[in-house]
Each structure stands twice: as C-alpha cells, then as structure tokens.
C-alpha cells in the first residue's frame, strides 16, 4: 500500500502535503510538552511561596530559628522540624550509606553470577514498597520492637549518652530514622552498584596481580574510582529522606519540640505538613506549613543540584545519578 502510494503522483503529492504539516506538528506538540514540564516546576515554586506568603511576611527569616509551634498563640517556627529532618536523615544515611556500599560490593565482587540478578532485583523491590505500607509496618511491628527490645538495650549499654536517655517510646526519631534507612538503602545501592560496575577490569586485575586481597582491591581501586558516584548517590538518598512525609508522619509521633534523646517523639518538615495541613486553619497555620514546604523545597533543589555537580566533577558523565525506574531494573 505504501509503495503504491509513492508510485501514484496524486497520492504522493498528498503525502508530501501531510508530511509538511506532520513534522512541524510533532515538533510543536513535543516542544509544548517539554515547555509544560518547565512551567510545572516554576508553578510549584510560585504556588508554594504564594500560599506561604502570609507566614513569610509575618515571621520573616526568624521562622527558621523559632523553636515554637503554637496554634493557640499563633506563634510558629520551623526549628523543631528542621532539627527533626536533620537528625532522622543523618542517622538514616549513617546506616544506609555503608550498608549500600557493602551490598554493592557483594553484588559486584562477591555474588556468584547466578544469584547476582535475583538478589539485586530483591533489593530494588524494597524501593517499590509504598511508603504508607512501610509506615504501617513501622507503627505496628518495628515501633513495638524498638520500644521493647532495641531501646532498652541501647539504654542499658549506652544510656550515659544524652541521645539514648529517657523512656523508650515506639514512636520516636530513632524509629523514623530506621524507616528512612530502609527507604534510602535501595536507592543508594542502585546507583553505587552501577558506578562500581564501571570500574575498568584492568585496574582491578592490576591490583590482584600485585597480590591484593579482594578487600584491598576494593579499597584501593573500586572505592577511590567510585568516590564521586558514592557521594552523589548518598546525597540523592538524602533528598529522598528529607522529603518523605507519610511514613515518617506515621512513626515519629508528632511532638513539636526539639529533644536531644532519640527515643523522644518529634516531627520533620515533611511529616508536619502531612499531619496538619489538611485540618489547619487558613489564617496563619496553613501558611506556616506552606512556609515549611518552601524550606523543604529549597533543600530538595539544593540537594539535587549538588548531587549532580559532584558526579559530573568526578568525570563520571556516563553514569546517570538519577535512579529513574528503568535503571533500577
């Protein structure tokens, strides 16, 4: 049919006419879609700032350092939530980064080739569990376990440290941090694993030829070669950790103060928005929550840009740091 059309001058003329419209049309449509993506990100920033405006004008930059969240006196500050976000994310990465490196070492250097793919897939699947389900598990399984077993053990051995003081609590900074560890580990692993796989075989073989053990090879060849990728991956994990709202809101307890003990309940910026935005009165509390959103958005953007710059500096341009779903395959 197509060949016939080309043979027939009338049809061919019509076809050329359609093509003259078709190409620019496709270009225009797809360009429009790309422009839409740009518009969306700008609109998000604009709208969140717009909603936060009453709180921004009322509290100014002092909002960041105000350690108070009082709907009755209408005095709102971000300090307890910035603290909660920082503490939970930092602990999560403290666990997740070494875990991810260890898992990547296992998957790229140790695992028999037959189990490599299935195990990598299982680790990736951890990232597919919806956060609300992880939160449910956190409330009903992990929380009680923390309260009954982990926290008493920490208290009896390391109780002299202020961070392990106070009564055990199922809802706590520590429980939230562990949930975030579970969420960020597969994300960091998928990137570090990919970076490890780009280490040239000759370098590894060179180290082995010089008599290195496997660990010495990893420490002196794989890790230095992958340093930028590991840092970038960890920062991307940080982005995920600071932005997680639901699972953290479920397990952190919602206290609106700063507490040194990790057993204490608290809140993070994202969790506070998730917990209160829907029911908050519009005059000042909702704008204050949106103000938390502005701070969170600024953090998220910085984290993403920094992660990308680091990886590009490390001249690993062929490794994509965005763990898009396809790369998790």
């Amino acid at each position, binding site marked *: 049919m197509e060949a016939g059309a080309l043979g027939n001058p009338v049809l061919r003329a019509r076809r050329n006419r359609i093509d003259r419209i078709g190409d620019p049309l496709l270009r225009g449509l797809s360009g429009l879609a790309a422009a839409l993506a740009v518009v969306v990100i700008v609109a998000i920033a604009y709208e969140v700032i717009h909603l936060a405006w009453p709180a921004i004008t009322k509290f100014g930059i002092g909002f960041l350092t105000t350690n108070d969240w009082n709907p009755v006196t209408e005095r709102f500050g971000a300090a307890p939530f910035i603290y909660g976000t920082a503490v939970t994310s930092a602990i999560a990465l403290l666990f997740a980064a070494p875990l991810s490196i260890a898992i990547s070492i296992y*998957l790229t250097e140790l695992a028999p080739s037959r189990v490599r793919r299935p195990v990598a897939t299982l680790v990736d699947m*951890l990232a597919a569990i919806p956060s609300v389900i992880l939160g449910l598990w956190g409330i009903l399984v992990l929380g009680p376990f923390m309260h009954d077993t982990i926290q008493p053990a920490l208290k009896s051995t390391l109780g002299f440290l202020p961070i392990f003081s106070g009564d055990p609590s199922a809802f706590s900074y520590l429980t939230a941090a562990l949930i975030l560890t579970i969420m960020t580990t597969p994300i960091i692993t998928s990137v570090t694993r990919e970076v490890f796989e780009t280490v040239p075989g000759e370098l590894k073989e060179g180290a082995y030829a010089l008599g290195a053990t496997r660990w010495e090879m990893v420490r002196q060849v794989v890790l230095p070669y992958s340093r930028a990728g590991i840092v970038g991956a960890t920062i991307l994990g940080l982005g995920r950790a*600071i932005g997680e709202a639901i699972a953290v809101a479920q397990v952190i307890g919602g206290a609106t103060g700063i507490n040194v003990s990790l057993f204490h309940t608290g809140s993070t910026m994202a969790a506070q928005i998730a917990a209160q935005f829907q029911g908050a009165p519009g005059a000042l509390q909702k704008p204050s929550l949106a103000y938390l959103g502005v701070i969170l958005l600024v953090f998220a953007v910085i984290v993403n840009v920094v992660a990308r710059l680091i990886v590009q500096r490390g001249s690993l341009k062929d490794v994509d740091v965005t763990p898009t779903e396809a790369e998790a395959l």
Partner: protein
Amino acid sequence: MSSGDPGHALLLDRGNLKRRNRVNRLVEVSSTIATLLAVAVLLIVVGSVISKGIGALSIHFLTTPMGLFGDTSGGISNAIVGTGIIVGIAALMAIPVGLLVAIFTTEFASPRIGHPIRFVLDLLNGVPTIITGIFVYGLMVAGNKQSGIAGSVALAIIMLPIVARTAQEVLTLVPGTLKEAAYALGVARWRTLLRVTLPTAAGGLLTGALLAVARVAGETAPLILVCSIFGQGVLTEPNEALASIPVFIFQSSESPSPEAHTQAWAAALILIAFVLVLNVVARAFYARSRKRMGA
C-alpha cells in the same frame, strides 16, 4: 585518581598476610550479611503484610464500601474504585505528555535545549511529593473543594518525570540504523517515529509507564492534602473527592483500634500485591524489549 598508589601500598603490606586475609574475610562476610539484611527486611515487611492481612481478606472486604468513621464492618470497594479512577486519569495525563517530552529531547532538541530539560525533569523527580500536594492544593482545592481530579493532577505531576526519563532512555536505545534506513527511503520524520521508532521501543515504553503507575498507586502524601475527605458509598465522579487505598491505609493506621489495623493490613496486602506484580511484569517487558533492540 590514585590508581598509581595501590601497588606501592600493597608491597609494603606484604609482611602480614594472615592479618590481611582476616580483614578481607571480615569485609566479605559483612558485605554478605548487609545484603542478607536488605533481603530479610523485604521478606519481613512483605511477610508481615501477608500474614496479618490475609485473615481479613474476603469477598465481602473487596465488594463492600467503607463504613462510617470507626465502623470496621465494611470493606474497601470504594477505595479500590477510587484508586482506579484517580490513577487511571493520572496515567492518561502523564503518559502522553511524558512520551512527548522524551520525543522532543531525543528527536528534536539540540543539546543546548535538551540538557536543561533533562535537568528540569530530574528536579521535578526530586520534588518531595508532599510539596506537589501543596501545589495542587493551592491550584485546585483552595477556595474550591477536594476532588479526585485534583488527586489525579498531583499523581500525574509525580509520574511525568518517571515516564519521560525512562522513555528518553528507551528511545536512545533504538538503533540509529533503523531510523536512517527509513530516512534514506524518503520517509518523513514523524512517519519514521510512528512506524519505526515507537514500535521498536514499545516494550521499554510500556515498562516506564507501568513502573510509573506502580510508583503512584501507593502514593499517599498529596492525596491526604487534596483528596481525603470523601462521602459514603462507591463514588465514581472525579469532581468529588474519592476514597483511595493508600489514604485508607493511612487513616486506619492512625486509628487506635485493632480492627482498623487488621483492615489496614488487608488493604496493604492488596496494594503491595498490585505494586509488586506491576513491577515484575514491567521488568519482563523491559528484558524482552532490550533483547529485541539488541542492547
């Protein structure tokens, strides 16, 4: 890069072979334990959901709408229907737009425009979903009311970068020789795209779409803000707020009642089964599609 040092350091180390082997063994064992730990956590979470949810799962649970607040005799039929509608509309919005963005960056844009767009997509991917919720709240709910369509818009924004980035990757995998063959025959660009490029990449494109759906099916944060206060019974009108499975799990998990928790586990079982099956299917398509493109 310190690739020159290792040999030097190793030669100095040589004296203590026993210690070196012990350290090596220790690292190997802890790497294996770390991996086992990750797999164990997956199995424990999925196992908890299955063991605690399966008991409450019944035809009644799947076909009856929720009861009033605190009444746990109902089921989640309205949430299943609601999630279907919200996610379905979101997919209808995000998949075509995401695909077009990918076509623009791979087929038309010069690197000078293409790179910034990729960057914007990565930024969009990095926006916390709760922020997307605030955005859609300000855009559609403030001064109006909650609705299923607001939920769909929020989920579509979350899907967009996922669909676009995976599609970009798949489209760049299509062998250039195929396209060049079409161009050499005088076939116009848009025809080549529709007849050659897209069919070749179909499996991979489907993968991206399925993964994006799996990703947002469990998304809760934006729905809490824009679609969480809904009426009784099975509602299907997207202009009204609709029930959804993730919001049901969230609200039940916050309840003190053990019956509500059991219902949350049962709903979680349905959601996790849906998400994991979608993931497995998507992976299968992806593997097949890569093979087809010789990648």
